[in-house]
């Protein structure tokens, strides 16, 4: 009786142990098959064909679409849903794999006009924090880099091919020359894209992602925040992270925003308003990612032709309202 009882109890225990050990500990998408996994999910679950390539800790997904946008450049609803499906598929894979990914970017273009591409870059950490309710959906949407751009490589190749045709080079030579001299890996996030059956991607680093995000938030705030939208017409905003050979590391934010109601305000006042807004954005971004590998933030007001540099500590004090913009040391203003 005791032996039977033991056997009866042994099997369920073994079954539980086996099921836990067989399935409970492994990752769903092993790193050896991570790219294929994305392709498979997109095909099986959404019937979307994608191409995937990884470099370092960044995964890039190319999504060709028909009727991505109309003549007004607004994105088609179906295409938008497909992009979302692909983003969700990639998120599932990068979250449940043993491969180490920090960023992923989805490059979508309309097959009729491949030169115009939508590039979406997301941080895996941000996705996790959203799922854990550590950040709000609104904050999350501010952290996503979305850019509708003319593919830089396509621009370059078109110009070069014009030259080649003037030189009457044959097709084979043209390709050879193009590969040898005019096709290079991207150096910034702005160069990321897909052209001519080739990914132009780079491993996204945190500082450049943050710099781009600061620029993206500047664009968003100057468009959506009433006080800023009423005061300025934003023409351009560019963010970069500079690490000079001398060892200086800083964020450089170049903003071209033309002040409205110029009669009522002086150029200097407009510049101060712009700097205040940009400093606030920079402070929030650096703080929310806990990033401190920089000495200062340099802001260039291209309209007012004025530049300021605010040290990291002062940036944090500004954010926490321990000092006011007016209290910044004069030397910080270059």
């Amino acid at each position, binding site marked *: 009786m005791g032996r039977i009882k033991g056997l009866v109890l042994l099997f369920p225990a073994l079954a539980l142990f086996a099921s836990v050990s*067989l399935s409970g500990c*492994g990752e*769903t*998408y092993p790193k050896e098959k991570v790219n294929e996994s994305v392709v498979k999910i997109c095909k099986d679950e959404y019937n979307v064909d994608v191409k995937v390539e990884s470099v370092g800790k960044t995964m890039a997904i190319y999504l060709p679409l028909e009727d991505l946008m109309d003549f007004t450049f607004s994105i088609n609803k179906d295409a938008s849903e497909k992009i979302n499906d692909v983003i969700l598929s990639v998120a599932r894979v990068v979250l*449940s794999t043993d491969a180490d990914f920090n960023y992923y970017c989805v490059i979508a273009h309309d097959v009729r006009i491949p030169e115009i591409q939508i590039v979406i870059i997301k941080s895996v950490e941000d996705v996790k924090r959203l799922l854990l309710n550590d950040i709000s959906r609104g904050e999350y949407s501010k952290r996503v880099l979305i850019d509708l751009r003319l593919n830089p490589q396509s621009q370059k190749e078109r110009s070069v091919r014009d030259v080649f045709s003037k030189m009457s080079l044959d097709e084979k030579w043209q390709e050879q020359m193009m590969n040898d001299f005019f096709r290079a890996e991207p150096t910034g996030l702005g160069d990321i894209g897909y052209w001519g059956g080739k990914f132009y991607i780079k491993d996204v680093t945190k500082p450049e992602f943050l710099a781009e995000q600061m620029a993206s938030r500047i664009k968003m705030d100057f468009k959506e925040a009433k006080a800023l939208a009423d005061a300025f017409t934003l023409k351009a905003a560019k963010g970069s992270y500079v690490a000079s050979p001398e060892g200086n590391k800083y964020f450089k934010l170049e903003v071209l925003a033309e002040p409205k109601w110029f009669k009522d305000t002086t150029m200097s006042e407009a510049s101060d308003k712009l700097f205040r807004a940009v400093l606030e954005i920079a402070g929030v971004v650096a703080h929310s990612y806990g990033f401190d590998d920089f000495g200062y933030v340099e802001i260039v007001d291209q309209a007012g032709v004025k530049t300021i540099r605010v040290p990291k500590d002062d940036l944090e004090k500004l954010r926490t309202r321990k000092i006011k913009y007016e209290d910044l040391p004069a030397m910080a203003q270059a």
Partner: protein
Amino acid sequence: MSSFLLIELLVYIILAVTAGIMLLFSPKIRMYARMRATPIIVGIVIYVLIRLAIMGLMSLESFYRKLTIATMPVQLLMVSLNAIIFVYMYMIFMKGGFSKLSSKTQIRGELVNVKWSDVIGMENVKAEAKEVVELIKDRARVKKIGGKILRGILMMGPPGCGKTYLAKAIATETGLPFISMSGSEFVEIFVGVGAARVRALFKKARELAYGNGGCIVFIDELDAIARKRVFSVFGGTEETNSTQNQLLAEMDGLQEKEDKTGEAKPEMNVIVIGATNAPEDTLDRAMLRPGRFDRKLYIDLPNLDDREKLFAFYLGKLKYDPSIDFARLARKSVYKSPADIENIVKEAALISTRDKRDMITLGDISEAMERIDLGLKHKLNMPLSEKKMTAYHEAGHLMALYLLHPTRDVFKASIIPRRGTLGVVHSQPTAEFHSANKEMLMADIKSKLAGYVAEKIGFNTTSSGVSEDFKQAMNIAHNMVWMLGMGGNNYLGDYTAIPPAQLSEKLKEDLNEETGKIFQSCLKSVEELLTKERPILDRFAKELIEKEELDYDEIDAIFKEYGKFGSMDAEKDRWRK
């Protein structure tokens, strides 16, 4: 993964078939399964739940699986915390305490300090209780002569008649520790808590009995756990059932152990005294059988002598006017329990203190009785015409009660509003009557109708104040005819026992006609009386309008003035005897 599941499923099927075959052919395994059916079923259910949970987790992608697993401990903690908070709050707010017994429930017998002499009246019951005490004290002698040791005493009777007091006296006289609990303390929403408390109670009682040679467990409001058990498939009353079962088992256990050893062990000397206001037939029969509550003591309301003694006892503790006649107070307090009498004396003491007197007077006691019986007076702005109508109405009641009722004494008439009435005539039975005859019921109807008649005589019109009187009078007349066979035409029997549909219309008409006849004859009798004694009616109405209240002495004086004082005394004496 799927192959693993298939193998697992196959093994389960093999196990189930093997188990089925073994159950079918091996009585030993069948017995084993029967004996452990609950743990086996619970074990299988838990296993299936765990297996399903694992399968559910397996179907999740690793990130979501980790997320779910990571939140599990917190969820478990939160659920446990919620459960603990809920149970704790419930216990705090609902004054429970799980199975733990409060130390306040245990009192040493000698500290109770209620002596036989403190138990007033109820001589018969006291004699029985004394006998019980002797039996408890001298168990060896009882055993020697082959007598059955008492296990339980059940005290029954109306509330406030001294059941708890008597139990305390028993505890004092025996000198045994006394554990007092209320039946409601065993009733909980948590299944098993009541039974656990019973176990804890008897465990404590046995421990005390071991050290003190015996212990008395007093369970007040026993009906809370001793009501007839309900055996429902839904288990709605299982908690009360299980508590009662445990009480029965504990009381049986005491008996059995004693029988086996032959010699009573001290820890077995636990006597359970139960007290209840509920009628005997509402209690579970198992509770009442010998071996549980062997002795039943019926504690009734005190009689005239007892009430006199009770007034003397409670007033004896305070300073009072020596001219107070206890016999008169006793007559005035028919159907009052000892607790009521204690309350009257306490209320009288408060009134006397409020009025800055250093002793209780008869007036204080009368006011206390009125406050308790009639309610507090409240001011109401009444037009003089309404006041006059009320005065006539109450004067009518007063005269009918005084001059026609053979079993009631009038103590007060008032036109001061109380408890929603504009006036009242306070009367009391002359003795403890436990039934009513035709004459008494007719007198009741007459006294109810007298208000209406007086209004009609005085003002040639009547008011809405008669509605309640009519209702009561009609109800009495109806019951006399339909239930008590007191109508004419030989309509004997209780016609309310027959469904109305089975009674012929003719019969109903006849019975209602009889009811009407009683009603009319009473009305006529009252009309004759009040018309004849119109001067007395007018006088009482006038006095009431002027003084608003007339006391016993003032009422007597007016009747004396008209030569009517004591006109019903002979009749009343006849009934009293």
